């Protein structure tokens, strides 16, 4: 026994070698993830000459930048709230609503594809559908005489962007919520109905409270997802809608704000918002796993 447990002298130098195996990975992470991010964070608190300041952060609180954050947050909230709702209903219909089993596998595969189909092509798909000459726009005008434009709808707007973002938000919700819905045990429902609960009561008192952390966590994740989306927004609206990623993009390209360090502060603000949303997601995820194992 003692031979097995007491370490031979060899062990003394072993730990250093073990760490060495992670060195390439650690170096890569340091150079291309941690250091660039730190550069932004530190730069947000620096003047051009490198001295410490809060001026850049204060500079964020000007009307144009504040309004860009506000529009970004509104679009992100709207697209994640609607995405959560529709994604939840679709997933619930698929898992609990008595739809044929055969629907599940194609829908999950499609969700995988659609949640990855963001960026420039997605913007084009929606331009071709809801743009001024789009399929749906023209169809509504010629068949029903409904002029979307005259009704105030514009694809290059808050609602246009929100509707477009839903294309990757809904599938992401379906992908995350389906396993959680699977985790709802049949016994809970039976127990509830044995005690005389109606379907609505079961959902309100049993199922939704259990699912709530997952739903709220996914909401946070979708929020971060929409907040950081750049390509779709730029391809769709050019620069006609001032949301944070577009402003930051323009700032990096050509210093449109007239102060390079204001760009650092904007990027820092983005990290703060998406970081916070993700912390909420992770925290709620851990909480929800307690029930759904």
């Amino acid at each position, binding site marked *: 026994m003692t031979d097995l447990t007491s370490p031979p002298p060899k062990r003394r130098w072993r730990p250093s070698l073990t760490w060495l195996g992670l060195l390439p990975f650690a170096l890569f992470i340091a150079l*291309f993830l941690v250091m660039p991010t730190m550069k932004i964070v530190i730069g947000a608190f620096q003047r051009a000459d490198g001295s410490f300041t809060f001026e850049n952060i204060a500079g964020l609180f000007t009307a144009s930048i504040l309004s860009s954050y506000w529009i970004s947050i509104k679009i992100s909230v709207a697209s994640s709230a609607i995405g959560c709702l529709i994604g939840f209903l679709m997933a619930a219909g698929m898992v609990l609503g008595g739809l044929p089993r055969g629907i599940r596998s194609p829908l999950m*595969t499609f969700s995988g594809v659609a949640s990855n189909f963001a960026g*420039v092509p997605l*913007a084009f*798909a929606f331009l071709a559908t809801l743009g001024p000459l789009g399929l749906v726009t023209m169809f509504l005008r010629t068949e029903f005489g409904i002029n979307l434009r005259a009704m105030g709808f514009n694809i290059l707007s808050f609602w246009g962007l929100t509707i477009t973002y839903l*294309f990757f938000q809904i599938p992401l919700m379906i992908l995350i919520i389906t396993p959680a819905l699977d985790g709802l045990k049949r016994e809970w429902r039976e127990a509830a109905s044995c005690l005389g609960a109606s379907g609505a009561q079961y959902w309100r008192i049993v199922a939704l409270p259990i699912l709530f952390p997952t739903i709220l966590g996914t909401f946070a994740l979708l929020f971060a997802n929409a907040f*950081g989306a750049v*390509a779709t927004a730029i*391809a769709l609206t*050019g620069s006609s809608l001032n949301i944070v990623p577009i402003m930051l993009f323009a700032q990096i390209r050509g210093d449109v704000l007239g102060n390079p360090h204001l760009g650092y502060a904007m990027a820092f603000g983005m990290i703060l918002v998406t970081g916070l949303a993700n912390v909420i997601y992770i925290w709620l995820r851990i909480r929800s796993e307690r029930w759904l194992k």
Partner: protein
Amino acid sequence: MTKAASWAILLLGLTYFILPLVGMVEFSLSMRRGEYSFDAYAAVLADPQFRETFSYSVVMALLTIVFGILLVVPTAFWVRLKLPRLRPLVEFVTLLPLVIPAIVTVFGYIRLYNTSSWLPLTGTTFGTNLLLMFGYAMLSLPYMYRAVDTGLRTIDVATLTEAAQSLGAGWFTIIAKLILPNVLVAVLSGSFVTFAIVMGEFTMAALLNRPAFGPYLQLMGANKAYEPFALATIAFIITWACMGLIQLVTRFTKHDKAGR
């Protein structure tokens, strides 16, 4: 939920997903007035800039995949074998690219590796390409690492390694000839995701001024009428094909294992 309500919401959802795709394809086919044709596709394929940017992105995707495999497989293997306590930490770190927006990371790259810095990667074309490849590897890290780590879970890493070592194999042989073939399916599905990501990526390539497919798409969108929709259709088919290949590869191995 009643059955009728389930059907209604499903059909409504599917309509929302299918209409933009139909709209995109329909638009891409309607370059010739009054009839459907592949004119837009012909125009796109004839454009030398399309071929250049497309092949640039393909080459970058393949390089990113090779680099990603070289980085992720040994790391995931090593963590499982020797540093299991660090697994949550490494996993957390690999998920960070999902938290920090790509536009922020690439902003950091531009400031950190500019011509007057200690590592002037953006000073040369080769250096910028290299930087872009590292950026792509960073973007695909969450998917690549998860895929490989899941693959490693299905094999007994410790026993296999000990067996190989007692037969005299070195670390290189163990990883190249033992671990890699065993997690090949996982590596492949990670590679397909990486491919799809790199082919569609816009922000990093645009801000680093590299002639990739994503910025070309955006440029065409601003200047042409029908070609962008042909390009978008092509991009969608690529994404679809990559995801389809993942399904295919996974299914084949399942058959493989059941047959044994």
